């Protein structure tokens, strides 16, 4: 048995490197290959239930509403819900467990990886997953009659951007809560209102004016608007505001996530 002699030359290392992203993605790909069936099942069944319950339940009563068939309205709205759940829940629980119970990040940060790279790597994987699986409600909706259109090809990218922002939100939250049980407050007090008041199941215009104003500050609202405009071929310059809002939210969450994760991981 021999150990490895020291022979490598030192690589040039920049402030931000893609190697940590590739490393984290490698790990996640392995896990995904193992668990893709259950992940896919959950991603398809949940929106199907939403569509059956809201689309066909309420849809049978409401029929056409807000200028759309209500089933189509819900199936596009639920895209944002799926993106939110995949990214925010994945980040909150995943990063908390890896940091606190598994101490995975202690090992990663002993390698030439900085916290901002680690945060970006984790968030980008969840964003990609949210971008892919966020399309599931739309595909289920198509099976129930949602007319296909070229704008649908933009939905994975909208899901990616929204997922990136909410994954970063989840990482930030995971770094500020004292225990894993504290997530109950975040889920019930922040995420549930967020997904209900985002234009998912009814337009925010239906709300009292003050509540509608608040709803427009909800990042998920901008995702819902973008998805509907893409799917129903209504994209215009006004959508740049939605993209800008999501970019701003993602940037703010990146700063907060890196700040608080650094405080947790570097003493």
């Amino acid at each position, binding site marked *: *048995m*021999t*150990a490895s002699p*020291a022979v*490598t030359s030192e690589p040039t290392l920049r402030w931000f*490197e893609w190697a940590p992203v590739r490393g984290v993605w490698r790990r996640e790909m392995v896990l995904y290959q193992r668990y893709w069936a259950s992940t896919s099942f959950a991603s398809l069944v949940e929106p199907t239930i939403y569509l059956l319950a809201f689309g066909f339940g309420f849809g049978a009563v409401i029929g056409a509403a807000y200028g759309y068939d209500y089933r189509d309205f819900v199936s596009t709205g639920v895209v944002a819900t799926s993106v939110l759940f995949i990214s925010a829940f994945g980040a909150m629980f995943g990063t908390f467990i890896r940091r606190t119970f598994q101490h995975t990040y202690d*090992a990663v940060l002993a*390698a*030439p990886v900085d916290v901002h790279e680690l945060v970006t790597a984790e968030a980008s994987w969840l964003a990609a997953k949210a971008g892919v699986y966020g399309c599931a409600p739309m595909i289920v909706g198509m099976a129930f009659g949602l007319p296909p259109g070229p704008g649908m090809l933009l939905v994975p990218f909208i899901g990616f951007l929204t997922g990136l922002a909410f994954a970063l939100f989840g990482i930030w939250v995971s770094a500020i809560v004292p225990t894993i049980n504290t997530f109950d407050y975040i889920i019930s007090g922040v995420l549930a209102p967020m997904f209900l008041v985002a234009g998912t199941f009814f337009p925010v215009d239906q709300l009292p004016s003050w509540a509608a104003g608040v709803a427009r500050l909800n990042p998920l609202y901008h995702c819902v608007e973008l998805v509907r405009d893409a799917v129903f071929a209504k994209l215009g310059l006004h959508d740049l505001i939605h993209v800008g809002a999501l970019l701003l939210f993602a940037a703010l969450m990146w700063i907060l996530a890196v700040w608080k994760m650094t405080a947790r*991981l570097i003493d």
Partner: protein
Amino acid sequence: MATLHARSRDTLAPDPALSAISIRGVVKRYGDVTAVDGLDLEVPHGICLGLLGPNGAGKSTTMRLLTAQSRADKGEITVLGHSLPGASKRARAAMGVVPQQDNLDEELTARQNLEVFAHLYRVPKDDRAAAVGRALAVAQLVDRADTKTGNLSGGMRRRLLIARGLVHRPRLVLLDEPTVGLDPQVRQELWSLVAALRSEGVTTLMSTHYIEEAERLADECALMSHGKVVARGTPADLIAEHAGTHVDEHYGPPERLSEVEELAKNAGLPTRRTGPSVSVLAAERQPESLRQELGPANVRRAASLEDVFVVLTGESVE
């Protein structure tokens, strides 16, 4: 005059370029607790330095300081010529870390764990498969390469941890309590691994509180107590300086043990409690009068590094 003094200090101070690790006057506090208290430590290239000390002496904090996962409140740290924390990323790229705590990814196989870290350590794509294969061979885990880490035994996991720290062929390896809690057989296996590293010129800093481990593997030992190094040297030199060549063990009831301690202390000889006995260190230096007063020792044995450890770091655990 002040300039002269400064120059003179600089001349006397070790040159960080000549050391793999240079720690000067480092202080690290956690609230009211001072974990590292003015630590000075130089680790020359190519040696295995054993960092000995009881729990709470500051060994693990020192290890974290070297990876910049802890930031010093005061002092300077240089690793492989890179000043920390500013250039810590480059330092981390050139060193391997084997943590005390098993933080392997249980969901992944042994091979997959190594592949992930081959990415993180920037092993070039063309070399990655060979690097992983080599690390598996080092850890003697070729046959278990595709076993999930959660299904490996404690010894295999520990070997995998070491392999993970070696996958990029580092110039410096930090081993934080590498064999803590392992069976003697497994410890022997890991010692062989560390010995192989040393023989191949990899600089190794190994924290441990197993005296035998340090005696067998380390070229030099630094004894830490209360956050600073209290003694430094080869195991043989430390034993000779602080415990002499022979130790006399005297058994008896508590009153007798206290009496032996008192007599030895008055004669300027260090003692330590060894269970139901008192050991008088450097027994070869005891004057004839003391020998007469103490009477014949129940056991005469060679002095050990453990004697030095206890004498210098205290009898009780804080």
